């Protein structure tokens, strides 16, 4: 899963100015064309990306930035922002299809199904770890669901990069393991 370049070339990408998302992005980004976690939080709320759900927490926004942050700058450029919005729309759709009563939260077993429907084929034990981590009295609100999806995607990407033989096994050196795992 290769991520497109994370910055915009000087002058921006062609057509960028017409992109409705660019309006929201540039409203919070500074001269450097990058946004930090709290600016992302504002941006996502203003652009309605959280839909009818509660706005994303700062923690989740931080995770989102880290998911796409190749240079560990702690900020996100417009191209990355677009990638994020695309992913968010997908997750929103998945969540919506499981939150049938529109309560803003899904239940444990629905989280399991949602994760499966996104193509992750996890063992019961792995799913248990995830459910323990996110379930709040058996319910998982949208923000936590997104947090989980972001981390799954980031971790999967990190894992794939180290699975050089494509056997589903990856090698981690200790210092690398610490840093990779903590930044996700």
């Amino acid at each position: 899963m290769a991520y497109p370049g994370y910055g915009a070339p000087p002058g921006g990408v062609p057509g960028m100015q017409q992109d409705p998302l660019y309006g929201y992005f540039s409203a919070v980004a500074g001269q450097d064309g990058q946004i930090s976690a709290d600016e992302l939080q504002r941006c996502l709320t203003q652009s309605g990306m959280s839909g009818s759900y509660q706005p994303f927490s700062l923690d989740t926004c931080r995770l989102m930035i880290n998911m796409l942050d190749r240079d560990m700058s702690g900020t996100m450029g417009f191209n990355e922002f677009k990638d994020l919005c695309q992913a968010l729309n997908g997750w929103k759709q998945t969540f919506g299809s499981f939150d049938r009563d529109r309560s803003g939260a899904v239940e444990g077993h629905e989280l399991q199904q949602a994760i499966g429907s996104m193509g992750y084929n996890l063992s019961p034990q792995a799913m248990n770890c995830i459910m323990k981590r996110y379930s709040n009295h058996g319910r998982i609100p949208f923000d936590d669901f997104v947090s989980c999806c972001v981390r799954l995607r980031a971790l999967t990407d990190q894992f794939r990069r180290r699975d050089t033989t494509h056997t589903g096994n990856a090698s981690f050196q200790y210092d690398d393991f610490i840093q990779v795992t903590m930044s996700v």
Partner: protein
Amino acid sequence: MAYHSPYRAAPHVNAPPDQSFLWNIFQRVDKDRSGVISDSELQQALSNGTWTPFNPVTVRSIIAMFDRENKGGVNFNEFAGVWKYITDWQNIFRNYDRDNSGFIDRNELKLALTGFGYRLSDQFYGTLIEKFDRQRKGQVAFDDFIQCCIVLQRLTDVFRRYDTDQDGWIQVSYEQYLSMVFNVV
């Protein structure tokens, strides 16, 4: 290297406290006199130097570390461990808070963790501060510093469990990796 020798608290400079001294403290902290110090009682007794409540996640971790009976609190016997644990951390924190600001900034954090044996990139310290600094100051207070170290230690522990030949490398399947991470962080 932090990996091969688990980082130890600063050399033990305090003589073990005497029982009546500890008992005095215990009684003051155990406000409802239940004989067990709960999370909230411990939280109220601890200070992070910011006039805001001590990190409840850290409080939970500390109680869980010493609560041998899974009762959700610590009795007097277990409290001795808690007291020493906190005192050790206070010494470490003071030692690395070089400018005595009451906070550990990015450079001081780097000194501390490198001193513990971790080998982490410069940018990563920024990530750590972002992740653990609840005061939004760009520096970590006492409780958040402890929390950061606790999580690093947990990751180290889980890594060790898989590194059976102790060479600093592990090979894990995708699912093992996910379970490791979601269990700890």
